[in-house]
């Protein structure tokens, strides 16, 4: 035995035993509270505005009128839809960051059907065609990197990322081809007088149908991942490809099949955005949701039901941030800073749920 004193650091990190659901949620809520206090300090230091005013403005911006509540629900539905789409692949540890492009290509298919067949087919036929075409388009865009991954083991992260830029360029091109007036680069509202190919209003609400479709998808994906054989295979491939092979799962098939599902769901998001919301297509139609969806899915630990909450949180922050920017005439970047801090704290809280800091008592080691 040596007599040398072991120098231990003041603090070390220990893996926690699993916390109860209640405890872990308390930590998450606490992290939001701490983030708000921290943001308050930043707000006062940088702008001198009363932080409470800022928070009240934020809440009003998100839910301050029935229109804003509907707009919030609509945006939650859209973000949730894309998040649901990326989740099966993520559970398989296939890092699909190409949802932005897959949504755009889906939206492009929707646009094409609306423009080319809008005056030729009745709406009853148009809507199913739109869904089928857009799901196929999204699935094709997603399956290309999946096939490369399955056969040649290419890096799916880079591949899917690059596919986004190709999709953006293709959409820009068609936005120019179909622009009205000539050359303006803006398609404008498609079938504005006939509403051909528009998803219908339900109970007089424009966005209700979008919300219902996404609610149904949420339940579907939850069941698909948790109770179906496909969902089980996805989990096993995600845990260990070798285990999967050992128990006779065809890994390549699972990768390709799962990305087809992901892409088709992105296609649905494209339909909801183009046919159900904007009725036009620009390269900003996906509005970054393909990337935000990654955070939503991750924060929710890839659980579709939790994703309802995480997408609500993020959209709430975004909506609040827009109102802050407007009311206090601050640049949007300032709102992004606040949103960023809050998300940072929430992600950080996961660390404290999994680990704890152990302070070493000042004792001599024997």
């Amino acid at each position, binding site marked *: 035995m040596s007599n040398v004193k072991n120098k231990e650091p003041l603090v070390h990190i220990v893996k926690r035993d699993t916390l109860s659901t209640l405890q872990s949620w308390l930590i998450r809520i606490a992290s939001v*509270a701490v983030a708000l206090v921290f943001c308050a300090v930043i707000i006062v230091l940088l702008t001198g505005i009363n932080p409470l005013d800022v928070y009240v403005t934020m809440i009003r911006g998100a839910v301050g009128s029935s229109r804003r509540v509907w707009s919030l629900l609509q945006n939650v539905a859209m973000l949730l839809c894309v998040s649901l789409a990326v989740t099966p692949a993520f559970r398989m540890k296939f890092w699909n960051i190409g949802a932005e492009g897959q949504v755009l290509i889906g939206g492009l298919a929707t646009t094409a059907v609306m423009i080319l067949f809008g005056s030729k087919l009745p709406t009853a036929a148009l809507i199913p065609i739109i869904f089928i075409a857009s799901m196929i388009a999204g699935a094709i865009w997603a399956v290309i990197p999946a096939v490369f991954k399955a056969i040649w083991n290419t890096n799916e992260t880079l591949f899917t990322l690059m596919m986004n830029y190709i999709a953006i360029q293709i959409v820009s091109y068609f936005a120019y081809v179909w622009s009205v*007036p000539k050359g303006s680069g803006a398609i404008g509202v498609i079938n504005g007088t006939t509403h051909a190919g528009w998803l219908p209003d339900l109970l007089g609400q424009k966005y209700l149908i979008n919300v219902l479709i996404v609610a149904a998808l949420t339940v579907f994906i939850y069941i698909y991942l948790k109770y179906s054989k496909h969902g089980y295979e996805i989990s096993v491939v995600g845990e260990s490809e070798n285990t999967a092979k050992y128990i006779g799962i065809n890994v390549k098939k699972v990768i390709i099949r799962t990305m087809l599902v992901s892409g088709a769901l992105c296609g649905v998001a494209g339909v909801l955005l183009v046919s159900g919301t904007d009725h036009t297509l620009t390269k*900003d139609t996906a509005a970054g949701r393909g990337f935000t969806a990654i955070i939503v899915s991750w924060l929710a630990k890839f659980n579709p039901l939790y994703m309802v909450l995480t997408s609500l949180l993020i959209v709430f922050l975004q909506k609040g941030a*827009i109102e802050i920017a407007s009311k206090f005439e601050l*640049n949007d970047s300032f709102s992004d800073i606040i949103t960023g801090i809050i998300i940072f704290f929430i992600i950080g809280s996961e660390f404290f749920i999994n680990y704890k800091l152990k302070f070493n008592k000042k004792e001599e080691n024997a």
Partner: protein
Amino acid sequence: MKKFLKVMAVVLVIAMLGAFAACGNNGDEPAEKAKVKVGFIFLHDENSTYDLNFLNGAKAACEKLGVEYVLKTNIDESNDCYEAAADLADQGCNIVFADSFGHEDFMIQAAKEYPDVQFCHATGTKAHTENLANYHNAFASIYEGRYLAGVAAGLKLNEMIEAGKFKAEEAKIGYVGAFTYAEVISGYTSFFLGARSICPTATMEVQFTGSWYDETAEKEAATLLINNGCKLISQHADSMGAPTACETAGIPDVSYNGSTESQCPNTFIVSSRINWEPYFEYIIGCVNDGKAIDTDWTGTIATGSVVLTDVNEKAAAEGTQAKIDEVKAGIEAGTIKVFDTSKFTVKGENLTSYQADVDSDADYTPDTEVIKDGAFLESNFRSAPYFDLRIDGITLLNEKY
């Protein structure tokens, strides 16, 4: 752990109390009598020269007239614009204004839903065919400003030729455009005609970026034009891309939307821009007095809508300001016509008749005779430009956009 939770609980309670206290404070704002309140929707924020120009005009007009206003920046050309416009109407705005072309359909949608609110839209083309009493378009005869800026460019080219920097036949101008859209075509053509009225050997190359705002693409386009041997650059795209590329390469730049002198002190010559303040004052005045707003309003030099920034003496040729003033007086007096059909040719011929697509439709049907008394009448049948002729002397490098 328990201690940690306790601390958190206290923090939470304090935060909650604070929130409630704040709610109490905000509840009782004095009820004002119905006054004009204007809501503005911008595609980007102050980082875009295009939007900054609108932002400045909006603030100046509202502060001058003492009316309340709300600004919404970074509103996409999507359903977001409809939501923003409707939200502004909900907030009690009696005027809602949007600054970007792609906002138009969504503004019309909101206008139909709020018949008591006036919806005004810059650069749009549909008000004169939409038949909505509360939806209005506005633009300015910016081609006159472009022409004047072109005069400054021509003077600079002449100065460089005289200084022996290049031969007269090498006087090539480079132009960074967004799309092959009438607004852009009208802009670069009037700029070119202005330049050629001073420097007769001038030619021009245009490179399109396919985006109204793409700093990298605009910078690359400007660099490409400079490498092609262009001696002077101008642009119709909204970022600082082209001006900064010029400053780096030491090539003179005639800017747009506002002065870029602070970032480009050595190369910025002058910039034409639309001053939106007169229009904002006009619409606020109309609503105040209960008068109808013009369906299609075209600002001019006379209304103070078409302006040039101060000339940067460091980069501009001598006597630029004096010459601009002289030509400006000519335009105002009607002795100089920008699109004088005797001053340009299309495929080698002078035009005597041209049907333009003034009433926008998906098939781009030409519907209006726009040449009269030896001039192309731009911004006459609607405020937004419709000059889309490809005149001789200008080479389009890429027409894909």
